[in-house]
């Protein structure tokens, strides 16, 4: 874990309020593992006060790539940064997806939930049969498809709610068919809470190994503030930042 001064190599504005940052951060890039995230200080000003947690999309030392959507003041300030600007980045933070040998893995990504799964797929290279089920509201939520195609996955199944790309519907509409036909052993998922809750219910009878990466509001990102608690089925809370962000899907208490 380092508090590193990153240098923005490229800042690209994409459709739908999405942005892609390529940042030179050699120490973080060297240490980052799939599923890790960083806390970025969006402004030198004390307002906004807190850093923002962002998943690492990809790493090729000395670079990391961050892919995010402008959702509020913090991410809007971040989107104003340009090539040559510097940015304080704390990371890599959190746990990572488990090492998996010789199993068929289904990646399930809703919208910007693609971020840690992309990193996982990139790290696997072509060594492993990976499938991707990828959904969003519309084409703008699935902008990384071209970049994903370069990863040569074994299969990509795309859904959009408005039908502007792939099949029309929610990605969960396509899940049963994929589970039956492709017979994955493991799922790794990331996306909106409602999607993950639905996945947890749908996957239960299949008895696969399921891991989900969670998003949370965070104060510090390294376990000090206890602000990012998530409820678990045991009744205890766990910290998304340093006990996660990857949890067994069944362990999380999802809203009903």
């Amino acid at each position, binding site marked *: 874990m380092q508090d590193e001064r990153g240098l923005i190599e490229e800042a690209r504005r994409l459709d739908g309020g999405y942005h892609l940052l390529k940042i030179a951060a050699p120490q973080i890039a060297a240490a980052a593992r799939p599923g890790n995230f960083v806390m970025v200080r969006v402004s030198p000003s004390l307002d906004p006060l807190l850093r923002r947690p962002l998943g690492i999309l990809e790493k090729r030392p000395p670079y990391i790539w961050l892919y995010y959507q402008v959702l509020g003041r913090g991410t809007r300030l971040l989107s104003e940064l340009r090539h040559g600007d510097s940015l304080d980045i704390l990371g890599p933070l959190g746990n990572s997806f488990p090492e998996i040998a010789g199993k068929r893995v289904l990646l399930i990504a809703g919208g910007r939930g693609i971020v840690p799964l992309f990193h996982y797929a990139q790290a696997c290279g072509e060594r492993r049969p990976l499938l991707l089920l990828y959904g969003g509201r519309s084409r703008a939520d699935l902008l990384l498809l071209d970049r994903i195609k370069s990863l040569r996955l074994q299969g990509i199944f795309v859904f959009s709610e408005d039908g502007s790309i792939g099949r029309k519907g929610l990605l969960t509409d396509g899940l049963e068919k994929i589970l039956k036909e492709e017979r994955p052993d493991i799922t790794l998922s990331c996306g909106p809470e409602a999607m993950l809750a639905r996945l947890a219910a749908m996957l239960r009878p299949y008895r696969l190994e399921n891991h989900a990466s969670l998003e949370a509001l965070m104060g510090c990102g390294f376990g000090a503030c206890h602000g*990012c608690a998530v409820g678990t089925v045991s009744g205890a809370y766990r910290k998304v930042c*340093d006990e996660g962000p990857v949890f067994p899907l069944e362990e999380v208490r999802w809203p009903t």
Partner: protein
Amino acid sequence: MADLSADLGFRVLKNPVITASGTFGYGEEFLSFYDLDLLGAVVMKGIFRQPRPGNPPPRLHETPAGLLNSIGLAGPGSEKLQEIIRGLHARTPVPIIVNVCGEDDDEFAEVAAIFSAMDEVAMLELNISCPNVRKGGACPAQDPGHTARLVRRVKEKISKPLIVKLSPNAADIVGVAMAAQDAGADALSLVNTFLGLAVDLEARKPVFANTTAGLSGPAIKPLALKLVWEVCRKAYVPVIGIGGITSGRDVLDYILVGASAVQIGTINFREPAAAKRIIGEIEAEMERLNINDLSAIRGKLEA
């Protein structure tokens, strides 16, 4: 070279910078950022007798230059904290202060006794001011009578120095401060967080399950500084100033109104090595002001 030492009467700290309870975990979370021995002291996150799950999420809400929190004193319980403290003490000689909590006076006294008996613990801070435990934010530090009873009770059970942490949500914080010191507090620390409210306009509900939450960060500094000044004018025990500190200059502001030391809190989240930077800034600032030690400005506000 300037002398940064901070005299609490019962103990001299190497500098006035203490990390505040709830903002520094159990110290170990910060070991990878800097040598904790640079600090005057560290305060552990507040502890009860038994493990506590804390409040349901959301627990945080960012405000302009501030942070509302409703963590609810989540923690592993006294036994586990003893283990953590032994581990931390083995890695750094920084003085360790335990922030003692309780659901009732009995529990405060019991937890205080447990940690007073530990050689690794330098002093105790009595957290009678957390606004996130009871609905509505009620806490003993809102009542001078209750504060006095509780401090006397705890003092009977311990041999270590006792800091009493005060609430800005008391009608008369100076009255509570006087009650605490007359009952035997060795020092006072203030302020804990200000009670605040955030609402969800769409849902027409409070953001937090506990309705109100505690505000901290740079936004509260002028409010906290004023209360510290008021208490320092009356107190005969040392005062530790807390609230919105982000720079060496902020630290000297608190010393100027009479504080003997300070605690830095929310800035630790934004900048894990903030305390290290701030200690360096105090030194630079003292040089600029041409003062050799903190007593040259402590309580010297001309007002």
